[in-house]
């Protein structure tokens, strides 16, 4: 008797959760459809100039046409590959630099003011120099993606290393652990959640670096399509590229979130 009543309460709880999820989902859908609907209507009725702001239907037909003639896939491939590389390299190099800083208190003290300056610098402003130095190709663009995310990763991960509860290190030192063993067994794994949130931030940052890099190099990729569309006044092309960037940036973010769920299961 009580069992069935408990079951009933649980069912009601589950039902409530499901209902809440449904409401949230419906509203998200309404906003999405409403946004594109308003955009389309506003464009068709000339509330906004369709020449400047295009319309969703035009964007869709441009994307469809470019998918069919195969040119889009190429640009997309280039940009996504550059972004993924820039993002991974930026994070890895950042973590390596943070590790170096952690390995020597003196080094971190020496480097501190330079890191502050490097962090405050608008990295995209280095674009022209990078392109002159490394040539107008993939290397320059990927370097842009790296440079935008690497310094902030270094700083955030390094402060994550420093915030690890010193008692974990004490436990290991009690067993006679070396500094490197303390790093491997305690500091690094304890900072994994910080690194994952760095990855999330870096998804956005590396897109900035790559798109600006493609603006400057202007050969291939979605950034090139945007700058080309701008120059020939084809704003449907600009909007299409933006739309694709939004989709792929969101997809990358979701992948990182999945990774987070896989890597971080036990944190307390």
């Amino acid at each position: 008797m009580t069992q069935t009543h408990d079951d009933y309460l649980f069912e009601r709880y589950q039902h409530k959760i499901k209902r809440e999820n449904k409401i949230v989902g419906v509203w998200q859908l309404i906003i999405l459809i409403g946004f594109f609907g308003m955009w389309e209507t506003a464009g068709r009725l000339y509330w906004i100039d369709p020449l400047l702001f295009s319309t969703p239907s035009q964007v869709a037909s441009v994307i469809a046409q470019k998918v069919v003639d195969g040119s889009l896939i190429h640009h997309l491939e280039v940009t996504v590959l550059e972004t993924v590389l820039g993002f991974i390299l930026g994070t890895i190099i950042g973590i390596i630099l943070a590790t170096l800083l952690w390995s020597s208190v003196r080094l971190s003290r020496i480097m501190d003011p330079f890191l502050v300056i490097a962090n405050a610098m608008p990295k995209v402003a280095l674009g022209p120099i990078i392109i002159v130095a490394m040539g107008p190709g993939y290397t320059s663009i990927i370097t842009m993606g790296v440079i935008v995310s690497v310094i902030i990763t270094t700083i955030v991960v390094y402060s994550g290393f420093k915030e690890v509860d010193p008692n974990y290190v004490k436990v290991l030192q009690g067993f006679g652990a070396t500094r490197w063993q303390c790093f491997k067994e305690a500091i690094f794994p304890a900072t994994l959640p910080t690194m994952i949130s760095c990855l999330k931030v870096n998804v956005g940052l590396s897109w900035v670096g790559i798109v600006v890099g493609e603006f400057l190099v202007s050969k291939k990729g979605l950034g090139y399509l945007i700058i080309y569309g701008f120059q020939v006044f084809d704003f449907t092309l600009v909007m299409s590229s933006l739309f694709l960037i939004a989709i792929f940036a969101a997809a990358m973010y979701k992948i990182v979130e999945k990774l987070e769920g896989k890597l971080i299961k036990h944190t307390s």
Partner: protein
Amino acid sequence: MSLLTLEHVSHHYFTNNSYTKALDDVSFSINAGEFVALLGPSGCGKTTILSIIAGIIQQTAGDVLLNNEPAHRSKIKIGYMLQQDYLFPWKTIMDNVLIGPKITDTITEKTKHSARQLLNEVGLADVEEAYPDSLSGGMRQRVALVRTLITNPKMLLLDEPFSALDYLTKLKLENLVSHLLKTYRKTAMLVTHDIGEAISMSDRIFVMDAEPGRLAKTFEVPIELRNETPFLVRRHPKYQKLFDAVWDELNKHEPENPKEGKVVDNDADT
């Protein structure tokens, strides 16, 4: 024969514009197999003493000898147990227990076997593959105990290992630790705030004075109490007498007392 000897050990903590003297000329020795408790007000340097013995920090003056050898050259293993368990949340219980052997690169089938045996002994069979977040506070502290014992240390340093636990769990763990240490003939030093815990577990009690930390007085626990389990010690007639004596001694060193006295004097002046 004394296993551990501290000779005129002092320790300073330095900051940019000041320093504090945490320990001032502390000397004592502990025999092999002995259980000693350190009692004292907070800030009297109890934890500093343990950290120095464990070799985690280096004293600013004096010598620490293990078996009459300087501690840093000695091969005698020391186990350190902290107030909280500090199990690594991302490692399974088994990996947590085996962290000591992993550090010294001595994991063998034999250590794994004895880890399982020890876990059994503390009543934790079947949790080897679990993660710490699924265990209760008492269970986690028992895992920490096994982690400390697995490297087979000659001496154990216990830094308030029961203070974060509820009373029932604490009493049970006191019995367990006391039993295990007697069975394996370990030498131990326990830091605690709890007079009852100190009396019920140890052979000798060092009462410390604060700012700077000094040894104030040593109490011998009567032989009748030493062989009882901690739980039964608390019911022994001689327990209360020793408790009162230690209580009075501790009160003498309570830093608030002289200050309160001064406040009263000032009031009298006005």
